[in-house]
């Protein structure tokens, strides 16, 4: 078979006759020579036949890297994690893929490991000042969401938390910011959450961080309200917060 025929066959996922462990170099050369041709079929076949060979090609020491390889490998993250620890694999995939695949790598890692603390550092590397947004958006419905918010808050990822609050409509980012004493950022996050989800359980979340007498706190929160629906939803939970309730009644009357 000609070199080009061999290459075409391998890229199409035809691995017949290859000793995948012993001939990993051939596979790596095929990936390097692929040009614009899709890598999906080869990586699909490798994932099926030998995940260790897949991991070697995708993120081993001789891997050619590049965003095309890494993006094609993401659907096989589970197989790669079967042979490499997630804590080691994801930073390596990020490094090899470069900027173009960084966000998909981070998002996939976040979906697979929503509670992992190493995602905090990975997020900072990928998202810079907005660190936390992709991670928190990806795990908004996971039980680890609140802990992830807390981890990002402790790492100082203020903007990411505010953005995640708006993206998800969840109250946990605001609560996490309150927990680390970022009061103004908490207000911005709370406002963003209510803009997206007026029924967001802000009272319960913030009170659980603040203390047993949160009336003073919520009086300060009221200026962020922009929607009547959000004000009315908040009011339902304020019957034991007399100052807040009184002010909310006024605010609601003044809103259209």
């Amino acid at each position, binding site marked *: 078979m000609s070199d080009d025929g061999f290459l075409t066959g391998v890229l199409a996922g035809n691995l017949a006759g290859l000793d995948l462990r012993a001939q990993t170099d051939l596979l790596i050369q095929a990936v390097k020579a692929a040009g614009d041709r899709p890598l999906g079929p080869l990586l699909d076949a490798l994932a099926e036949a030998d995940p260790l060979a897949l991991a070697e090609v995708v993120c081993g020491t001789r891997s050619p890297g590049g965003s095309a390889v890494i993006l094609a490998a993401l659907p096989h993250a589970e197989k790669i994690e079967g042979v490499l620890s997630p804590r080691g694999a994801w930073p390596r995939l990020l490094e090899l893929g470069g900027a173009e695949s960084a966000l998909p790598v981070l998002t996939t890692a976040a979906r697979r490991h929503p509670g992992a603390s190493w995602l905090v550092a990975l997020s900072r590397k990928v998202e810079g000042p907005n660190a936390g947004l992709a991670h928190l958006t990806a795990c908004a419905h996971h039980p680890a969401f609140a802990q992830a918010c807390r981890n990002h808050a402790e790492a100082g990822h203020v903007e990411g938390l505010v953005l995640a609050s708006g993206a998800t409509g969840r109250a946990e980012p605001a609560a996490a910011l309150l927990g680390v004493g970022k009061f103004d950022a908490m207000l911005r996050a709370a406002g963003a959450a209510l803009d997206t989800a007026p029924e967001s*359980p802000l009272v319960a979340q913030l009170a*659980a961080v*603040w203390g*047993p007498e949160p009336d003073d706190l919520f009086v300060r929160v009221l200026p962020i309200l922009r929607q009547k629906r959000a004000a009315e939803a908040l009011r339902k939970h304020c019957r*034991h917060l007399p100052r807040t309730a009184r002010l909310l009644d006024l605010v609601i009357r003044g809103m259209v």
Partner: protein
Amino acid sequence: MPGSPGRWPFAGHVRGRWEAGPVRLAWAGRIAHSALPEEAWEAATALRDVLGSVVGDGRFDVINQAWAAVDTLPERWKTREDLSLLLAACDPAGILLSSAGMAAVYVESPAGWVAAALSGSPLFTEPGAPARPPVPQPSLRPGTRFVGLCKDMPLPKPADIALSCGVREAL
């Protein structure tokens, strides 16, 4: 009562007071504290509802009325058996303490925070709404600020007590 370690230290915490003439009642407690904040807030609101309705004539009466009010908590919250509640009532004749789910109670004194009751006191019971109203106990020492501790809850450093109990400076 200090918050618990974790993401939501004050989930399900309540604190409040009632006053009519010389009779005063103050309470601090927690309910459903291990639930998610939304559920804990609902439980705490129910506890605030019942305690907010208490009236009484004298320190003994107001304590008994408070426990009678706790007994009217919705079953959903009572059956969790995780209520911890410290009541302090006073009138011109003295101070009474009564509690459920407490392991220690301290009172602020000129000498610092000191035990308001000795170990083995009927004040110290398992968590949960009591089947019968606990017998109120006079405080060993008079004072105006009490801290109740649940099991495995250490007394915070004196300088940290207010904040650890969620007592905040004015915003």
